[in-house]
């Protein structure tokens, strides 16, 4: 007998849905049963050929379409609701980005295509490089790094090449506690050891915080500005001066560029190298965890170390220049995540100079608005104007036994994705909110209202909050079990 299926039922795995023998997708060049024509691959010896692929699925096209459509419905996304994740800049991803990136002349363009075919792609990439130079004030850009973390690594490799070219090889990188989480791992991969610099009660770094650690073994200082507390590093100019006096370079983690574009420029502070996150600031979609894109920008005298190839223009014709003796080498298979560059360029072109500045201003206004609305509900450890994000915590809820995680999970019941939680590490129980400029005021209000309701529940009915979420496709998962006895694939 058929069962009633209220609400969402779990979606089986494709391997469980598979129907061996089902009429599946027909590949070109096959007969009506989907088999390659007889006589295929006559010269390949049998010992090179595999038997059947054990367990591989077999489903009719409609079943495939339904499966992935149903799975998509189990996701939260920007297209359905606000995503207030601090440091992630979950802004609207304009649909036109997808349209332009999927044009055949760009999507089908092969990286080894004859130069004549590459002209449009190289012109576009070169224009994006120019825009990123203009926004940062720096002089040269490589679009090759595939993500922010790889941008950091590329930047650190450039810094190491710079010192080596000068006949030195200092091996320490200083990282303020308010910088991004990836920084230490990127340093290690470049052969550096990282030292964390504690930040004082103001939440911003001072030259005095840095001074004791600024030895001759320091290669660079990695700074995130605005920092992960959402505060602008107001001593940035004197910090850069002190770092340069010590013979080191300043690396800027540009993850938070959405706060400052068109208002203040990293090069004017004294930054030598930085990376951008096209998937944050420049509206390329996050895609459920990537692909991102992390272009690196440098000062003029560091341009010779950029990864190969670089885009060159001989008068009318663009080409890829591989003959760069001082280059650090190569960091991705081809020229980086080009399709992301296409999207970012389309976005920048639509905004234009004024639109870019207006975007950052609105991002800062939205964050400060939410800070005002939330600061009476949650504890705000660093009061004052924030930039594009604000960091609060659960100190006031401790008495009721409610933690940040509980409130974050309860937000899911109100239909909101939680903010970034427990980061930055310098704020215990951190609750880091970044609304971005594209969120309408009524959604900011609805989010603040939901938080007010949850804070009230924390006192009146802490168990309700503690056991949240109650309405999601699955409830809190046993992550300890997943890690103790990992099951990472389906087996028959």
């Amino acid at each position, binding site marked *: 007998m058929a069962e009633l299926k209220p609400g969402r039922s779990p979606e089986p795995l494709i391997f469980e849905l598979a129907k061996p023998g089902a009429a599946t997708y027909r590949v070109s060049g096959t007969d009506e049963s989907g088999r390659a024509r007889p006589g295929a691959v006559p010269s390949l010896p049998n010992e090179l050929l595999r038997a059947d692929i054990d367990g591989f699925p077999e489903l009719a096209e409609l079943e495939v379409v339904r499966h992935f459509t149903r799975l998509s419905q189990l996701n939260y996304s920007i297209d359905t609701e606000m995503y207030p994740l601090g440091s992630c800049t979950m802004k609207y991803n304009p649909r036109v980005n997808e349209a332009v990136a999927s044009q055949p002349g760009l999507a089908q363009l092969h990286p080894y295509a004859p130069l004549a075919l590459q002209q449009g792609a190289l012109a576009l990439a070169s224009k994006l490089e120019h825009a990123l130079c203009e926004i940062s004030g720096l002089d040269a850009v490589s679009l090759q790094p595939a993500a922010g973390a790889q941008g950091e690594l590329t930047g650190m490799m450039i810094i190491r090449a710079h010192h080596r070219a000068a006949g030195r090889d200092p091996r320490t990188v200083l990282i303020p506690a308010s910088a991004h989480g990836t920084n230490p791992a990127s340093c290690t991969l470049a052969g550096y050891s990282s030292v964390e610099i504690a930040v004082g009660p103001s939440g911003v770094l001072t030259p005095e915080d840095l001074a004791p650690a600024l030895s001759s073994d320091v290669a660079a200082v990695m700074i995130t500005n605005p920092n992960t507390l959402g505060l602008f590093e107001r001593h940035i100019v004197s910090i850069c001066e002190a770092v340069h006096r010590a013979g080191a370079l300043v690396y800027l983690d540009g993850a938070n560029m959405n706060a400052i574009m068109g208002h203040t420029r990293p090069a004017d502070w004294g930054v030598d190298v930085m990376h951008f996150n096209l998937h944050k600031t420049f509206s390329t979609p996050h895609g459920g965890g990537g692909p991102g894109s992390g272009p690196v920008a440098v000062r003029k005298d560091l341009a010779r170390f950029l990864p190969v190839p670089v885009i060159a223009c001989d008068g009318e014709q663009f080409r890829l220049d591989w003959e760069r003796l001082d280059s650090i080498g190569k960091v991705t298979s081809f020229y980086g995540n080009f399709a992301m560059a296409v999207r970012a360029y389309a976005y920048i072109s639509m905004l234009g100079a004024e639109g870019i500045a207006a975007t950052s201003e609105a991002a800062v206004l939205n964050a400060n608005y939410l800070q005002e609305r939330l600061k009476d509900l949650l504890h705000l450890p660093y009061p004052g104007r924030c930039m594009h994000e604000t960091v609060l915590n659960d100190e006031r809820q401790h008495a009721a036994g409610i933690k940040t995680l509980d409130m974050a999970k309860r937000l899911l019941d109100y239909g909101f994705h939680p903010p970034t939680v427990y980061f930055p590490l310098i704020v215990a129980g951190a609750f880091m909110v970044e609304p971005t400029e594209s969120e309408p005021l009524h959604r900011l209000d609805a989010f603040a209202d939901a938080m007010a309701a949850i804070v009230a529940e924390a006192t009146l009915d802490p168990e309700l909050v503690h056991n949240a979420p109650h309405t999601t496709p699955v409830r809190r998962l046993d992550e*300890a079990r997943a*890690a103790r006895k990992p099951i990472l694939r389906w087996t028959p």
Partner: protein
Amino acid sequence: MATYPIHLQYSTEHEWIAVDGASGRVGITEHAQAELGDIVFVELPEIGTTVTQGANFGVVESVKAVSDLYAPASGKVVDVNGELETRPELVNEDPYGKGWMIVIALSDPSELHALLDAGAYTAMVENRE
């Protein structure tokens, strides 16, 4: 309420040692396991490894944290709790019993004077809270 048995000695890094003659059995305290939450993996040295008081001898992981383990005394590792490989949760369930980690043949028993007794350790933990 966490308990700290009086027959054990404690390090400020939250390891305990139960000295029995020339050797000592080592684990982490109830406070430490509670702070870490659900422990999912314990990485221990091989038998025969030499460990030094205050130096790292292994790693304990919970779902979202990873902590170094520090030897409360110096010496050679003569036994390792292999059961933790498949049942790391024993550290949560029974930190002073089935959740033990290694046994050290002590090379310098005089080092033990630097450790805390149960009272001093309890005071340290309560002060922090």
